[in-house]
């Protein structure tokens, strides 16, 4: 896996540079990929809801507080930005921490 630096859109007209994994060294030889961070954030929702569901539905007694921390790396798939689950401590480009407190 190689990685390269690409511009990623984070909002209208705003970009940041991010390290992106590329599955292999080639691809459509365009000079410019329009990458939108929004495309990659879906996995945060998915992981979050998976954790939440697992804890709520799977455990006989629900814990008072649930936390999850995971890392995301970015990659390009089908020309779009996508995120790949990574070690939270390792080389992740983005570390996400989610917590739920349960009062009931």
């Amino acid at each position: 896996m190689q990685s390269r630096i690409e511009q990623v859109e984070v909002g209208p007209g705003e970009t940041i540079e991010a390290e992106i994994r590329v599955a292999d060294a080639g691809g459509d030889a365009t000079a410019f990929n329009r990458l939108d961070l929004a495309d990659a954030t879906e996995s945060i929702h998915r992981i979050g809801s998976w954790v939440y569901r697992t804890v709520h539905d799977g455990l006989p007694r629900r814990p008072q507080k649930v936390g999850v921390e995971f890392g995301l790396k970015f990659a390009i798939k089908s020309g779009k930005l996508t995120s790949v689950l990574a070690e939270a401590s390792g080389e992740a480009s983005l570390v996400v921490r989610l917590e739920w407190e349960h009062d009931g």
Partner: protein
Amino acid sequence: MAVRFGVALEMGRRSTVQVWSGGAHLGSGFFAADGVVLTCAHVVWQQPDRVLLRWEGHELPGEVVVRAPGEFGAGSFYGFPDLAVIRVGVAIDHPVPWLAEPGAKVPRRLVAYGFTAATPDPGIGVEGVELWVGGRSGARYLNVTNAEIHRGMSGGPVLDPATGQVYGVVKGSRDYATPRGGWLIRTAAVQDLFDEHPELFRTTAPTVSLLRPDPGTPLYQLLAAQHRVVDRLPYGLDDRPPPLSSVYVRQHTRRTDEDAEPAAVPDVLRRNRNVLVLGGPGSGKSTLVQHLAVDTAAWWLAADPDTDRAAAPKAGPVVAVRLSAAGLVRTRAPFPVAVSQAVTAELGMHLDSAIEPALFEAPPAPGASWLYLIDGVDEVLAAAERSRLLAVLHDRLAEFGTDARFLITSRVLPDGELDALADGVATGAADRYGEYVLDPFDRPGLAAFARHWFAWRTPDRAEALSAGFLAEVRRARLFSLVQVPLLATIAAIVYERDPDASLPADRTSLYRETVQALLYTRRVRLSTRDELRRTLGPFGPAAESFADWLFDHTEACLEQLAHRWLERAEAPTIEQAQAWVHEATEVPAGVPLASLLRELLLGSGLLVAQRNGLAFSHQSFAEYLAAGHAARHFDPTAWLADIDALGPSSRDLFGLARWIQLGNDPVPLLRRLLLGRRFGLGGRSGGEPWARRITLDAVELVSGGGTVGAWAAVGNFCAVLRDGIALPDADRRELLELVRPNLRRIRRLDDEVSLARLRDVLRVLLVRGGGGWCLEAVMHDPRTALVTRIEAARTLVEQRDSEPARRLLRELAYRPRATEGRLWAMRTLAAVGTDRDRRYAAFRLGQVVSTGDNGATWMRAARLLAELLPPDLGGPDGASTGTAEAGMLDAAVLARIVEPGRPLVERVEALDLFEALVQAPGDEPDPAPVTAPLRYSQPDRTAPRLVALRAAAAIAQVHHRAPDSTRRATRTLAGDGTYTVLERFGAARVLAGVGLDELAAELLLRLAHDPRLPGVQRAEALWHLGRFAPGAARDRLVGWITAPAADPGLRADALATLASLDGAAARDAAAVLAGDARLAWSFRAAAAQLLADPAVPRPRAARALRALDDRLGTSRGADRIGARRKDEEFGARRAAGSIGTRLGDGRAGSRHGHHDEGNS
């Protein structure tokens, strides 16, 4: 023009563009057609339609009009074909490389171009990489290796370096960092895309409404000054020259490299970006240039747009700027500076301020180009200067993407000097450069000129003078001279001066009359003489007689100046004139010679003042005057050598004529001319006739095929004749006698140019040389080439209405065992013969076309026959205007196209010719700029499928003109086993498609009734018929099905076909079939079952029935095979039930079934 190695590749590289959006470089693309850029869809993916194209320093707006496909798709690469089309928003001059034929074998090595940041240069640069073709990648991409494909190269063209043809579009890279290549999109995908979007190529260049300049702007000033200065005749022949715009007569031009129709100059400018116009002395080149300048200026200056509603000047969206070539070479400044200096010098005081070079560095107005009219390249006399100018112009012509266009005029220069101009320019785009010859006046043109001229000069007597002038031209046989516009002008002036005197019959005398008038007899000049004497009076009697001397020697002085100008390229100056006077006579002291000379010389109108000195008002006047000098120092041998090397120039002919006018005998000289250089002895005059004859025979013997020498001798002699030399009868006869052996030696006459030359020569011999007897001898001379004899006869018929000549033509055309020349004789007869000749010749040519076995012969016959047609068959109703000959040609070629015994290659030849010959009636040529169509080479042209379709199209095209022969052709096509039945169906569909139902039906019915064909195809023929004539098809099918005697297989096929055409009728018919006891049980059962069951969709029923056809043939045998027996018995039982119980239902259900069909 041949494609040169390197140039072609260069065109490919230069067609590559950068695609940008929102400040980001997206990738590459290239011009795939006029105003159309091709790139990859992934390059513009998620980008707005408006993109920016960067190309050779230009920023062009673009709009993505096609994205194929619209979205990325599921894979890790953008989906196939991954192509996008960007339309360029402005008209710009750009190269277009050729696309390789989709099926062509891909070369091993290709070169890809694209723009990338991965070059050592900062920013985005072009990268060219050599790629090796590995093979197909999937069915749809090409796999290439050998070099890195960098990011940004997507969309770039991939070319064959040898031919410059595009074989693919860069799609993706295997590895941006190592030379592992990647993938290309094949041109087949490009073709498919373009086929789906024909609208991309039909549009013309985007129209921009041109904005006229405001008064006070530099452009306005330039145009206004040019309009004032240029609207006069290019030569000051008279005190009262009419404005050019009131006497201009439009002249046509024709391309030099093809046998083309004459075209008006504005059309020529619409077809070609750059144009070279060639013409002889006084042929109207300068006039044309001035007319263009004035005409376009008038459009741009129109104050009230309503008065000039045209959307653009006639010459197109250009601002024409007139520049004399001689003025342009005076400077070595950069081009815009040189132009500004030359323009400022020429417009002089008519300008309020100098025109700045900056004006020429940008387009004159949005959407418009500069059209530089470079007049008179030949008038740059120094060869080195001239070749420098040509080199500069060549580089300008070869440039793409500029706002400069050129129209260059010149006389033809020896040794192909002007070829340097076009070298390599036309590569890549055929319409970048065209070479045209200015046609002289034709008779209507001359008449128009006379009308305009006298209407301006003598409005009250215009009609009478104009008619008188034309009559005098006819009487003096001057037409071939006054075809030249300048000579027409001169002749008109000479005539006008004394309408009762006869016009001189030669060019030199016309010039002499004019020069004499300009110098000595005009009223203004007479007063000049008095003025001169008054001015010099105070200096004493010597000075007064000097005044007379000076006045009388004006011509001699001008002759000297002209001589030095033409011989040594020394521009005329007052100092030179002064030096000459001092050498010739004693100048009384105190006389202000310089100012006197200035007045005297400029007052003649033969010299005009320019910013940098003096110049002759027309080059031909300089030549006439210089010839005065030459005639006094005339050396016949040197003259002959000169003519021999370069042909007779206008100057040579003036020299000879003026030498003759000095009292010299031209006959020995002309004899030497005609005998050729090897026979110097011929120059000795007074030889015995028999001795001459021996010499002539020797000439022939020795020089055998010396065509070149013979052409030169005859051509040069005719040039002298045409120029109007006066010869005593005996001498003329002797000289014409010498022409004949030369004509005999001319053998090669297979091109239009030679033919035109020959006709010209013969006409001059007859008209100017009085050589009727000579032509008669030529026409009967068996040793002369047939074409020459035929043309001699033609000239006699045309000019003298000679019946013997017509008889000879008939003999040459129709005698038994006639040779090649017979076609030409027929053609000639058809052109100049009687009505009967015409009809018969057309008939015989048609015979050759339809049956001739020699490819060259029949095609030639077809071409000749085509030429017989009136050029314009106009009117949408072709049938009424089509002549017998038109029908004859169509019928003849059609007969050839459909002849079953002819190899397909020959039919394709005939089709090609047919399509070239036959124009659909009412098919007007498109006046819009010709947008280059996609340039593919053809698929396999001898594929029978294609031939059959084209043959049908050919039949359709001429049906209205030759209904009988198209019917015959259709019948032949129907029975032609060269084509498969499917191919013949295709032909029928073509005919039906254009509404020729009757012919299509005829074709299909012949197939349907062809007993050699299998039943299924015969039935299918009726199915095709059913698509446009359902009633006829149904009746016939039902007929077959219900005919007990018919072949059972055919009946089954017919039933199946009918089922898919008309369900209700099929049910009815099936009942009959099922009840036919002679048929196999199995078939009857299945038919009944299938057709009685409304749940079975009809197409399936049809298929099933057709499948049963196979069983049917063997059903009687199969009955005895045990394995099947059970099934069949079972089937029979069911059938019995079906027939018994369902038949009634079937009938009742037919309505039901019909209802079904209505719903489906």
